[in-house]
């Protein structure tokens, strides 16, 4: 088993630097294994604090066109569950930033939740986000992952009533994922920073977990604005767009440059 250091390690450095963490989402195998590994290395070098590694799924209900297309590219390239886990393991071995899986219930279910938990933990990942498992279904789904030492960050949306948000925050592990606006992932629509700020303020009392904000963050300005209030900033579609169409070193270079632009916008908290 590769030591993950767990979530504490993820937030140690940004906390020490009194800035928001940067979490970057890539799809395993998009468009191939080597590119994904090169991109992860580049993101790590660019100062990304946590890699969200998407295990490709053909029917990603929570994702917009960019991530859906990236997943399709990965599937078309033959990426299977075991390949995604192997990519994570290899990246960790090469010294990448901590890795958090992101996928849907069905691939995990079919793979076997216990088997997934075991292999995911063995790959050195810190946890898994499964966006179509809401709070109510967590008791049936979560225990094997938790038993394997994996965190399960849960999502809170603008539509989540405050009382429910508090319960989600309480049930979450690793961090709490605040969805910054309505809809699915995708860079085309802006995050609602004001809403994120007020939610964060409200949630502080409900949890000691870091509060991360994602969906729609695509510019350094977004990162700066969100980073000023949140403990972490999550970028996905915009990053994928940044290197889509290229491979290998070129992709890594594009991804790294883009990540650096966001990372540079994360200033120490006042």
């Amino acid at each position, binding site marked *: 088993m590769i030591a993950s250091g767990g979530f504490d390690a993820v937030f140690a450095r940004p906390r020490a630097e009194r800035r928001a963490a940067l979490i970057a989402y890539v799809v395993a195998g998009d468009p191939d294994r080597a590119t994904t590994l090169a991109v992860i290395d580049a993101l790590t070098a660019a100062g990304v604090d946590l890699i969200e590694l998407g295990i490709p*799924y*053909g*029917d*990603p*209900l*929570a*994702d*917009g*066109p960019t991530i*859906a*297309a990236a997943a*399709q590219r990965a*599937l078309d390239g033959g990426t*299977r*569950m075991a390949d995604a886990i192997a990519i994570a393991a290899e990246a960790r071995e090469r010294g990448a930033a901590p890795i958090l899986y992101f996928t*849907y*219930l*069905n*691939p*995990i*279910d*079919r*793979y076997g939740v216990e088997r997934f938990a075991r292999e995911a933990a063995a790959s050195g990942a810190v946890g898994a986000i499964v*966006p*179509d*498992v*809401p*709070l*109510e*279904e967590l008791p049936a789904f979560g225990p094997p992952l938790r038993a394997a030492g994996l965190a399960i960050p*849960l*999502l*809170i*949306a*603008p*539509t*989540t*009533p405050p009382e*429910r948000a508090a319960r*989600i925050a309480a049930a979450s592990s690793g961090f709490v994922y605040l*969805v910054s606006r*309505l*809809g*699915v992932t995708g860079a085309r*629509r802006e995050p609602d920073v004001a809403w994120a700020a007020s939610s964060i303020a409200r949630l502080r009392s409900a949890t000691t977990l870091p509060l991360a904000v994602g969906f729609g963050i695509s510019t350094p300005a977004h990162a700066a604005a969100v980073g000023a209030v949140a403990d972490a900033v999550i970028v996905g579609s915009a990053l994928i767009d940044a290197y889509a169409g290229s491979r290998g070193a070129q992709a890594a270079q594009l991804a790294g440059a883009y990540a650096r632009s966001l990372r540079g916008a994360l200033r120490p908290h006042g």
Partner: protein
Amino acid sequence: MTNMVDSKLPDARGYFGRFGGVFVPEVLVEALAQLERATNEAFADPAFWAEMETLLRDYVGRPSPIYHAERLVEGPHAPIVFKREDTNHTGAHKINNTVGQALLARRMGKRRLIAETGAGQHGVATATIGAKLGMQVDVYMGEVDVERQALNVYLMKLLGATVHPVGSGTRTLKDATNEAFREWAARVEDTFYVIGSVVGAHPYPYLVREFQKVIGLEARAQMLERYGRLPTDVVACVGGGSNAMGIFHAFVDDPDVRLWGVEAAGHGLQAVDTAASLNAGSVGVLHGSRSYVLQDDEGQVLDTHSVSAGLDYPGVGPEHAYLKDSGRAQYVAIDDADALAAFHHTARREGIVPALESAHAIAFAQRLATERGPGGLVLVNLSGRGDKDVRTVAALDGEDAR
């Protein structure tokens, strides 16, 4: 006498036994909870049902008749009785559900309806009630389907709806459904997602069944009145499963009535090209609930095939999964060739051109009627008319039918 099940399901968490539930992104959880509350309130309100009944009567044209299809089978056989959902406005059972959901939407103050559609039937049914109630309608439809169902696309436009071609994935119904979910997530406040079958997250499988159960309630009373007894067998095709749940529900508590769901085997159950989720699939989660899904060993949803667009779907409603596992209903499959034969046979012998979906049910009922013999009484849900399929069949027959 068959295995008994609980016809009062789903439970509070939306489960039928181990099937169902709510597996959606958090952004939709509250919308579903709201919908559930609104549904429960509406269902408890006699004024809601009064308006529904008026629309079903005057607009949809209910009750639909039952009809003895006398010339379908030769030799000794059980009478075959059709429940005629084909006589409904827009030509299928789908309208029962869209009328109900549109009334719910209006009650909830939503002015915009969205819907997914495959062949276009549910899209047309949604556009129809949207036009009548003056609501905006946006329909999501795979690019492949937009191309091959140009007539229904134009019909939706005529009805004032906007059709959005979906270019992701297989560019068919499954992806259109994904897209409708995404669109709903983006505009939950003003938008009501009208799902077309007993699928999706709770409360959809429940509320769609409640809107479709009128089929079985009518048919049960009509059978008793006409024949003085219940049917021995009830047969319906199963795509998502709404017409089947619609006719099954009223008979679930009648232990002597056998329930038969007929799936589309496409090129055959052993073939890759099938759409028979209950017969050839495995338990999985698709579009928000747990049920049987046609998927590979990695949980990736498979491309499906059926000559009938309305059955060409990799999932199936969770209540059917429950009825299957409990043994209360049996699920069989009919392939393209047999469905097409039944389509032609029903046209020639009864003067009724059935929807290709319904032709699957008829094909099975023909066999069953012979097996049962004159003592049986087979009720078949004729879920829709086949006008929409005439071009498809003509093309398969190499005929010109522009």
